[in-house]
């Protein structure tokens, strides 16, 4: 009997939740990313940027279509594939048709797969997946699908840009590759080997290794090897505490040359590196905050920092996601016909607030844009990170990086 009543109570709550009324005057966008657990900091940063971008770039401009506003609805996926799929289902039930997600390529893979199946099985309730951060190249190559759009440069594009810049530096003779032992770490390493081999066959790869992800407490032994190898530069795809641990250990062990990274800023990382990272730490990525590209960018960033003094614009592309989605909805004339919106997004060329042109390549739904090499420093920093005085300053720029690199994507169009 207890079992019965328990079931009824719980089911009643489930019903409450699913019958949540949906207002027709807003266009809801589901933000599916970690808001609790170890990666919650990154998720919270993304959410704040989305809310700000939706308000500032869309709603204050009068919204889309006949004045419909964007509303960001957060869903905590706890960086778990399973939870993401549950929350995706909840979002779809609430009538949400746009899904944004970025943290973890594993989750992105699960979502893109689920969205594909959902759209096939429920043609009347199709949804779009706007991926703003997951950079696994497969998502726009062998695993590409019509409903997925990527706004960040993928790992291969970033490596292409990075190796372009490195190839121009004659002082680099030995390179050390180290990364986390999973798909992204492996993708970075193999892309680096391949591209350096093409562009600068004379560069010697003095180390190429993977370490278990999130399990190394002390990176000193790795740092010793890197110092002992006499590398002129090192490349790592590490993020989170693996990035901090590795970076600090290497610098502490006496390494002075550049450390090229993908993710080594904000979320306390910039502050933690501080003075130590100056001169060696470099990021490859899109979006140039320093020096500011335009008054509009300055105003936007300033307004954001006023609203969120403890947060940073760590993912500048989020502004592009909002602006481009708004344009696509207007072009399509509908926020419910996903095929039309997707078709409008395909091939769209957009002038970003960050000064670059962003082209959503139609063949694979990969955004092509300028990619920068950004130095961690306190010189010439208008907008710092973590309120530390340190920030990222663009050193080099590769215009429309990898625009000519082919994709293996064979897109199935409805």
């Amino acid at each position, binding site marked *: 009997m207890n079992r019965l009543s328990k079931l009824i109570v719980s089911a009643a709550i489930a019903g409450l939740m699913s019958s949540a009324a949906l207002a027709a005057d807003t266009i809801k966008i589901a933000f599916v990313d970690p808001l609790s657990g*170890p*990666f*919650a*900091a990154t998720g*919270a940063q993304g959410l704040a940027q989305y809310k700000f971008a939706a308000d500032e770039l869309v709603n204050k401009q009068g919204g889309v279509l006949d004045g419909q506003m964007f509303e960001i609805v957060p869903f905590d996926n706890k960086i778990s594939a399973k939870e993401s799929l549950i929350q995706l289902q909840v979002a779809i039930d609430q009538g949400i048709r746009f899904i944004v997600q970025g943290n973890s390529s594993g989750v992105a893979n699960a979502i893109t797969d689920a969205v594909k199946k959902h759209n096939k099985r429920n043609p009347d309730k199709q949804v779009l997946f706007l991926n703003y951060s997951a950079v696994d190249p497969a998502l726009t190559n062998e695993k590409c699908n019509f409903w997925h759009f990527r706004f960040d440069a993928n790992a291969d594009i970033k490596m292409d840009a990075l190796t372009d810049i490195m190839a121009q530096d004659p002082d680099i003779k030995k390179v050390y590759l180290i990364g986390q*032992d999973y798909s992204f770490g492996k993708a970075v390493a193999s892309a680096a080997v391949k591209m350096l081999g093409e562009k600068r066959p004379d560069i010697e790869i003095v*180390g190429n*290794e*993977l*370490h*278990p992800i*999130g*399990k*190394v*407490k*002390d990176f*000193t*032994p*790795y740092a*010793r*090897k890197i*110092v*002992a190898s*006499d590398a002129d530069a090192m490349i790592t795809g590490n993020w989170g*505490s693996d990035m*901090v*641990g590795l970076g*600090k250990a290497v610098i*502490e*062990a*006496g390494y002075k040359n550049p450390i090229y990274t993908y993710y080594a800023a904000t*979320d*306390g*990382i910039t*502050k*933690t590196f*501080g003075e130590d990272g100056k001169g060696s730490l470099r990021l490859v990525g899109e979006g140039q905050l320093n020096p500011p590209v335009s008054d509009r960018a300055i105003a936007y960033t300033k307004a954001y920092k006023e609203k969120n003094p403890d947060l940073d614009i760590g993912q500048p592309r989020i502004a592009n996601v909002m602006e481009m989605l708004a344009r696509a909805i207007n072009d399509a004339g509908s926020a419910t016909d996903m095929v039309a919106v997707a078709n409008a997004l395909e091939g769209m060329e957009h002038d970003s607030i960050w000064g670059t042109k962003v082209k959503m390549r139609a063949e694979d739904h990969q955004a092509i844009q300028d990619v920068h090499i950004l130095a961690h420093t306190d010189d010439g920093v208008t907008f710092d990170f*973590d309120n*530390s005085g340190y920030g990222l300053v663009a050193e080099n720029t590769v215009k429309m990086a990898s625009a000519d690199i082919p994709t293996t994507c064979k897109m199935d169009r409805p």
Partner: protein
Amino acid sequence: MSLIIVNLLDGLVTGLLLFMLCSGLTLIFSMMGVLNFAHASFYMLGAYFAYQISTYLGFWVGLLVAPFVVGLAGALVERYGLRRVHKYGHVPELIFTFGLALLIEELVQFIWGKSQMAYEQPPALDFTAFAIAGNAFPAYKMFMIFIAMGIFLLLLYILTRTRIGMIIQAALSYPHTVQNLGHNVPLIFMGVFGVGTALAGLAGVIAGPALGTFPGMAFQLGSIVFVTIVIGGLGSLWGALFASLLIGWLQTFAASYNIRFADIFEFFGFTPPVDMANSALRDLWTLTVPQIGPILPYLLMVAVLVIRPQGLFGRRET
């Protein structure tokens, strides 16, 4: 050769740090029979408290004060939480500490947020002590070694030269008899738990700047502490020391040398699959030792438990 010396030193730092956690855990387990799952959480609290104190009063005050605060927190947890659960038996006690670990992580995030804290080593120690073949050995690591050694000697002194040490030693060997000696057992329990957690806190205070201060730091270290004392033998301080150093060096050396599994397999006469990309065993063939370094302790523990369930130095059946 010079790299081996550097590795030995690095491994010593890791091992001694581990020992500071293990010694407290061993004390608690020996006296109270509780495997404190939240031990690493007190280590994390140590780092966060010290960080908070250091932002106002500097590193050195944090170093002195934070372990006491952690120990006090530990004593309170014992007094108002663990003692209540004690009567239900060991499994609920273990599960209590398991829940406590979850709660502490949530509380830390609630208070300090989810980002990495900028907890830094003091400027006075921010220099290179010496360098061996280009590999710098930071002064802070020397400092860590000294502190850990100091704690070890202090523990040794207390355990072998003082009356309270005698009681504790008696409890290590004969856990049931101490109660009969007329000692205030609840007070001793509270004290031991406090001291044990304070040791963990101290480890956190000095490890925070070196290994990072973030909400995941307890989880990262949590189970490895168990593994260490299980390998060493539950209830054995010398076993804890031996296992800590063993694991410190094991992990350091495993990460330092890129031994490929393919070489090992070929040494034993296996031939690599012709079509590597499609072989079901491709992952094994491309594996290197650093990739599996951090899981070696678990492998070691399972092996030890299967062969010698009481651990390397343990006398008691668990």
